[in-house]
């Protein structure tokens, strides 16, 4: 079972993700957790030692800690966890700064869930 963490300040993201991955969730292939700020995300990761989350999808533009900051701190504190960014700003600079900070992938908004599922599938295959 794979556990993913989605970080976004928009609350509706949870509903959206849960619906898109309803089959996978129902079948128990994956577990989704949600955090609505960078701080909350870090808090959740620290709750279990070692953290059971394997992969984080994070928005970049959030009040308080930005997604990039979260990325950097996760890379320091939990280097084994993969992090991919999801942002409305799909420009070069934004992507580059995410990649140099250690992001695995970069997804733009509106989210292409097919791509996202493909990424998750690949990750699952590799894990197994």
């Amino acid at each position: 079972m794979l556990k993913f963490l989605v970080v976004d300040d928009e609350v509706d993201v949870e509903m959206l993700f849960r619906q898109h991955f309803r089959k996978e969730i129902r079948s128990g292939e994956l577990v989704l957790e949600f955090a609505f700020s960078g701080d909350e995300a870090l808090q959740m990761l620290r709750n279990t030692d070692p953290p059971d989350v394997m992969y984080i999808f994070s928005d970049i533009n959030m009040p308080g800690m930005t997604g990039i900051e979260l990325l950097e701190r996760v890379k320091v504190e939990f280097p084994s966890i993969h992090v991919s960014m999801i942002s409305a700003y799909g420009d070069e600079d934004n992507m580059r700064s995410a990649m140099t900070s250690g992001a695995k992938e970069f997804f733009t908004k509106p989210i292409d869930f097919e791509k996202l599922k493909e990424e998750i599938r690949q990750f699952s295959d590799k894990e197994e």
Partner: protein
Amino acid sequence: MARNVVELAALLAQREAELAVIGSVQEALAAKRELSEIYTLVGDQIRDLFASPAAGIYTFDLETDTEHFQYLFEDGERVYPQPRPLNKLRKWIIANKSILHVNENAAEEILRITGDPLSSVPGTRLPKSLLFVPLIVDNEVRGCVSLQNLDEENAYSESDVRLLSTLVNSMNVALESARNFSESARLLAETVQRNAELAVINSVQRGLADQMDLQAIYDLVGEKIRDLFDAQVVVVATFDHEHQSEIFKYTFEEGRRHYPSPRRLDKIRQRLIKTQKMILINENSSEAYTTITGEAPKSLPGTQFPKSMIFVPLSIGSHVRGYVSLQNLDKENAFSESDVRLLNTLANSMSVALENARLFNETEQRNAELAVINSVQDGLVAEMDMQGIYELVGERIRTLFDSQVTGIVSFLHDEKKEHFNYYFEDGDRLYPSDRLYDNLRQKLIDERAIQLFNENTMELVSKINHQPFKAIPGTRVPQSVLLVPMIAGDQVRGYVTLQNLDREHAFSESDVRLLSMLTNSMSVALENARLFNETEQRNAELAVINSVQDGLVAAMDMQGIYELVGERIRGLFDAQVTGIYTFDTSRGLEIFQYLFEDGERLYPDHRPLNQIRHWLIKNKTILNISENADETVEKITGERHLPIPGTRLPKSLVFVPLIVNDEVRGCVTLQNLDRENAFSESDVRLLNTLATTMSVALENARLFSETTRLLAETEQRNAELAVINSVQDGLVREMDMQAIYDLVGERICDVLNTQTLIIRTFNHRTGLEHWQYAVEKGVRIEVDPRPLIWANKILVEKKDFLLINEKYEETAIRMQGTAITKGLAPKSAIFVPMIVGDVVVGSVSLQNVEREHAFSESDVRLITTLTNSMSVALENARLFDETNRLLRETNQRASELDTVNRISNALVAQLEFDALIHLVGDMMRDTFNADIVYLAMHDKEENTIHFPYYFGDVGKSRLFGNGITEKIITTKLPILVNEDIDKAYETLNAVKRGKTVASFLGVPIMSGDVAIGVISIQSTTEKNRFGDNDQRLLNTIAANVGVALENAEAYKKLRSALNELKAAQEQLVQQEKLASLGQLTAGIAHEIKNPLNFVNNFASVSLELIEEARQDVVGFQFSVNGEDSSRKTENGKLKTRLEETLSDIALNLKKIHEHGTRADKIVKGMLMHSRGKSGDIQKTSINGLVDEYVNLAYHGMRATDPSFSVEIKTHLDPAVGDLNVVPQDLSRAILNIVNNACYAVNERKRAKGYAEGVKPTVVVKTKMLKDSVLISIHDNGTGIPDHVRKKIFEPFYTTKPTGEGTGLGLSMTYDIIVHTLGGRLEIETMEGEFTEFLIHLPHAK
């Protein structure tokens, strides 16, 4: 035998009686009774035996011829008379050594026997019967025993006589031995006492021998008395009669010494002084004290009132100098009679001893003082300096007193410091530095009194100083300190101090007295020394001053004074070289006014000022070189020291500058060629004083000669002035030029008695000279204008007078280059220029044909002055004429100007062309009172002429033709016709167009180079109606009209330009709005992506769900018949799932709608902006609006510059609520300001202007205030410099690079906040630190 028996019996009885008496005497003797007791015993027994009412035992002191009553009984009682001289009766007894027995007529009988009437012992009666039996020892009558009966004669029988004489004889020996015994006992006691006294006295004497210190004697005697007597309190005190006080020299009480302060004399002491007798109180001391003094007892502070006390005065001569007192605190009758006696003796001894000691001390002290004074005097005689005296006195004092520290210190009052002239401590001479004096010294200065600390010195001094006592560095802290001020005049100049480091009470009263005496002596001596020095110096100075004064009185020249002073100085000082030099600083020379060297007066030539002289000039101070002269001079001057030629180099030298008015004019020098240190400090001082005195004197002398010179000059001037005055008086009256020439000419001829005088004026244009006044040999002549002569040409060029007093012809040739042309050449001549402003306008010349040197300098001066006066007068006359002319002209101009002004004002106010033309026309009519007025304008394009204004006639537009108006336009010249207009037309070759008029004036209206029209005024009736002035005025008006027309034209253009500009500006405003929209778009695009994300994805997931639902519906099988339970179960499952899916879809659609609405709102906002119009006022949530637009601004920035990063913080006060505003406007304002804030932090970041750990931050706050809502936007960006700060609200002002800003953002923002919303917009900023915009929006409460 019987008789014998009887006789024997009687004899026996007598013998027994005798034996009884003798026995009792023996018994008494054996019992070592007092002699007086024995006499009493014997006396009583005799009285009993003889039954005598009166009995007496007397002893005689033959040496003093007195009798002592050892026993006397009379009238039934014992009496004790005082001893008395031996009377005749006693002397008879002594002489006859026999019994005296009188039984009858006692008085006569006694008188018969002794030759003296019977006298009774005082207080007794004369007896009727008496019996005297002598007491004879060693054949000498030592006394007698008597029986007396005062009442009866024949009281004593013969047998009584026999019995008494037998008894006395028997007793005599016993009595005698008893008397001897008693005497020896007395003597013994006395000896003991004497011994004690002697011991005391010896002690005192030893003390005296050992140390001639009064205090030591008091101490010694005090201690001795304390040993001898049973007293807890011993006091030795002296009286200070002057102050009515007692001074305690020795006080012992309660087992220790006390040192009470002096106190006023109490009644007991006063009584001691008055009576000079001791006071003894042995019982009931308090009452006794009260009886004596009349007041209640008071004990010394801290002591008890005693039970027994004795006060014995210390008397010297008839003066009570003090007292000794013993007091016993515990018991009465503590002091016996013998104690009293002994104490008296001791007191007497001590009085004498102390007096001796005092006298001795005083002598010693006088000697010491004399020695010190002598030392000082010796020092003075030996020409010691002050320091020498200090040393001498210091040493002297040190040997006199018991102190480890001896100091003589003087005060430097200005610096509040003390200077240690002499300081000796613990056997070492110390040299402490000057130091600030402390409060103790200040106290000394203020009180001018001795400061003595004998106890608790540290504590007391610390208290005075308000700080812990500090010893002079390198010294110890003293236990006893004595400071005696040195007073000169009424000032404390310093002090002498003694300090004992080891013990308290080191300094007695006498020490203080002696030291203060010495100090006074020294002060006086030092002051004398100082005064002596000063007097000497004053004398020398006075002598020099007198010399100089004498010299001056004797009308000596300066040299004389130098000689005099030089000689004087030479006499005063020990120098081979004496010099007085003056400096000529302008030529850099020194002049040897006086030089004396090696006994010879020298006269060296002037020589350039050397470095020493320059040093003096620069430093203005004394140069005193007393050692190593060569090197020192070299060091000062930087060059080798060279002697004045013909002189030697000195070993000691002193230069004193002669200073006048703060300027070194010279110097006085003393030099000793043979030895160093030749000149003492006082020499230098004296020389300096002399130099100063001489400087003044020399300046006075110089001033005197200067004054004399000036006086002579003044007299001359007065004479000249008289002439000048008379000329000037005349000149003031005359305003006619010729009259002025005549006046001056005549006056000069009068005064100078000259033969030839010419006053000429020059016409520089023509090069001619005009002879305005000419006298030759006393005759007025007239000469035609002619070219300037050579001398005048020189005057014109040089602008200075020309005086030729000899060799006239040669000079003239030399100066002009050619020979003189005509007439007899003068021998002397003077030419003086008349100058007005900077121009030589003429000359006055005098000539003398007879002699050379005819004209003196004062003549020149006088003529020059007169010429100058004349120049001024002439210029005044000219100016007067000119002024009158100008005044007239000015008046005319003023009225013209007034008209012009009126018209110009009107013109300026009128910019409409047509209105302008009418205005001008009407004004022409008013101003010139003309009956025809027109304005013609030339339309070049259509080549027509038309008349926008025509009064008095009809003016129709016409083609440009050949009329007079056209002539004016063509020629651009005015035409004035005052008569015969027809002829004028002819002359002008013009066609007549309008009415025939008497006078015509027309001037062109010029625009730049072109005549664009004509103004004309005409009179139909009057000829010569218009003059030059009218023409000029009309010209001016026309020019004004031209300008006004141009202005009108320009105004027209300006208006259209303005309209264009407005359009352009509006476009720009729109652009600005679009620009902000552009910025917004990016932000909005991002904002819109979020809802879009949801809309898209919810939609797509919904599609999936619907597909699932559809499949579920397909899977849903309805049973036709029967109940298939498994089917039923499957259908139930499907139904549940289907319902779930449908509710999900419904939820999704709700979300899609929600986010669609969100996107719509964002787009609406954008549209609102893009419309660019102001909206309506509506109730708006300020916090919501601020939050939204801050966010938009951020995203806008973020979108255009991805590298942009800033922390935006918002603190929104919930109390702010809603306000009635135009939301579009306010949002635009906030957007602008936040954009600028972001821009500013970005700029600072880009310039790497942030310190480590500081983030670019924008803080937006709202706050509900009393009268307003505050929206503040604070950024920590680049800040705004002052010069920019003033302009940022101006439209089109921008600091952003070209293309990045329109320069309208803040201008619009300001407009919105202040004008549209009625609020305030403020900025606080610091360059390089922060900027904060504060928006205040009013709110209705």
